[in-house]
């Protein structure tokens, strides 16, 4: 294979180019994997727990920063009864986890969540259940205590939701969670109101009703919850920026390599043109080389991304459950498509050089 021999012609340069592409691809894959995972975890949780409608404070920049007063929650509960479940949610920086997700839900909600060990906590008893990932990472068993917000909380059971984000935190009663998450001196608040067990057309009517009847609240379909998170929008923008920068960077690296190859092989390109090759034929040969480098870089980049995710996942400062340790094949496919785009885009400049090249001056090139 001519193109493989050409790639091997300058092995160090080819290796450095492939590594450069790999770094760009690894960044793209790792960051996209984190975003997709976060989104799919939130989406998964809302669909698993049958949450058709999520209600949060209208002026909140995201559902996580929402504050619903006890009076408002009482109004909602009296109107929607058992279909509505209040929720308190937030994260704490604790010794045992830098971002410990704390979720306060009524015992009725817990019927939907399978326990892997122990039992459900009692209301108002200062007890909590720990997610499976947090329990494994900390080696905490039911009956043991952990320190949360300077108080000892007894772990009564271990739950598994299937969402690593939740399984890396704790669940406790509404009152306990409110106490943990409330700012000093502030009145305990609710974060969300969740409505489940309704049909699609009923959900739409409910959303319209809540948005009309309670101007200070916003109701959205559960499927839009992840998209409503400001964090997700920021991360999306960040991922797009990183992807574009990675794409441009890798294109420049590959372009530079191809231009160097043209400069080194000018006389040989002149020979090929003399025997009838068009710039297009020469470009086709360069494209094969570019494709080999980009595919090698993409595959290496996927391996780097896996390693990177595992390392970051192991960092205590990141908290449990926030970083995935694997990613879907579709992301690998997307990274290969990115590599293919790089292989094509990076040919633009070399193509201009080739189309301007005169066979005679190329043949005389020293």
């Amino acid at each position, binding site marked *: 294979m001519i193109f493989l021999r050409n790639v091997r012609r300058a092995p160090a340069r080819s290796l450095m180019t492939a590594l450069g592409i790999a770094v760009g691809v690894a960044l793209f894959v790792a960051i996209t994997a984190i975003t997709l995972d976060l989104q799919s975890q939130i989406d998964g949780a809302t669909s698993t727990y049958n949450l058709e409608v999520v209600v949060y404070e209208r002026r909140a920049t995201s559902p996580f920063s929402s504050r619903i007063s006890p009076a408002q929650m009482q109004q909602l509960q009296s109107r929607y009864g058992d279909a509505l479940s209040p929720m308190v949610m937030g994260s704490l920086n604790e010794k045992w986890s830098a971002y410990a997700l704390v979720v306060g839900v009524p015992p009725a909600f817990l019927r939907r969540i399978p326990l892997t060990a122990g039992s459900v906590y009692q209301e108002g008893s200062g007890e909590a259940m720990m997610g499976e990932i947090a329990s494994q990472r900390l080696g905490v068993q039911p009956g043991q205590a952990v320190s949360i917000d300077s108080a000892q909380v007894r772990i009564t059971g271990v739950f598994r939701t299937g969402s690593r984000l939740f399984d890396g935190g704790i669940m406790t009663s509404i009152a306990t969670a409110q106490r943990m998450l409330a700012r000093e001196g502030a009145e305990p608040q609710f974060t969300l109101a969740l409505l489940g067990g309704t049909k699609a057309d009923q959900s739409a009517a409910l959303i319209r009703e809540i948005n009309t009847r309670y101007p200070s609240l916003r109701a959205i379909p559960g499927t839009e919850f992840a998209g409503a998170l400001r964090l997700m929008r920021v991360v999306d923008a960040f991922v797009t920026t990183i992807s574009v920068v990675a794409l441009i960077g890798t294109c420049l690296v590959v372009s530079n390599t191809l231009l160097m190859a043209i400069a080194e092989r000018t006389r040989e390109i002149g*020979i090929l043109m003399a*025997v*009838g090759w068009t710039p297009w034929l020469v470009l086709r040969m360069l494209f094969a080389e570019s494709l080999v480098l980009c595919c090698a870089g993409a595959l290496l980049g996927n391996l780097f991304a896996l390693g990177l995710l595992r390392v970051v996942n192991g960092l205590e400062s990141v908290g449990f459950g926030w970083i995935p340790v694997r990613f879907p094949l579709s992301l690998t496919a997307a990274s290969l498509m990115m590599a293919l785009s790089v292989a094509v885009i990076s040919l633009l400049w070399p193509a201009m050089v080739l189309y301007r090249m005169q066979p*005679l001056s190329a*043949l005389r090139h020293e």
Partner: protein
Amino acid sequence: MNDHTPLLRAEGLARYHDHGAVKALDGVTFETHAGEVLALTGPSGCGKSTLLSILGLLDQPTRGRASIGGEDLARVRDRASFRARNIGFVFQFHHMVSTMTLLENVTAPMIAMGVPRAERHRRALDLLDQMGLSGRANFLPSNVSGGERQRAAVARALINKPLIILADEPTGNLDSRNSQIVVNLLMDHARAQHALVLLATHNPDIAAVADRRIMMRDGQLVAST
């Protein structure tokens, strides 16, 4: 076109550089027929290579005109395709692509013609065999001798059965034995294909095998024998 019609005609060909200060070629006129072997002789810098470059469509004349097979070279739009179909080049320093095997180097002009891979390989292997290189087909140029490289270059020039073979000092880098082998192979195959050979050389022994000799000096033709 019959045998009496010139295959190649040059009329007042000139190539100037530096706004006319350097006259690499200055009013060259001649014509020649298919199957002829024409030796271009003369000292270095007399314009032999410039003349071959213009006739090979690698360069354009400042003035004058040339035609091959009745086709005016100035009017050729697809010059690469014209070169691939009608012209075979043999250069002084074999000019092989270093990352291509001898077989791949010989098939290169056929790639430009769009010849299918299987046919390319069959024809190239056959010609390499005739050049005594069948055992070297899959060798890179760096792994064969200078004489073998130049024989492969001759095979590359002949592979598309071109109308004209332009050989610029094809033996300039070879010892006398290899020079003789390469020239004999070139002549034999060119005559078999009824191709016109324009052979630029310093070597009087090589020039002696030509049907006609044209001597050049200072960009002009000064004698024809």
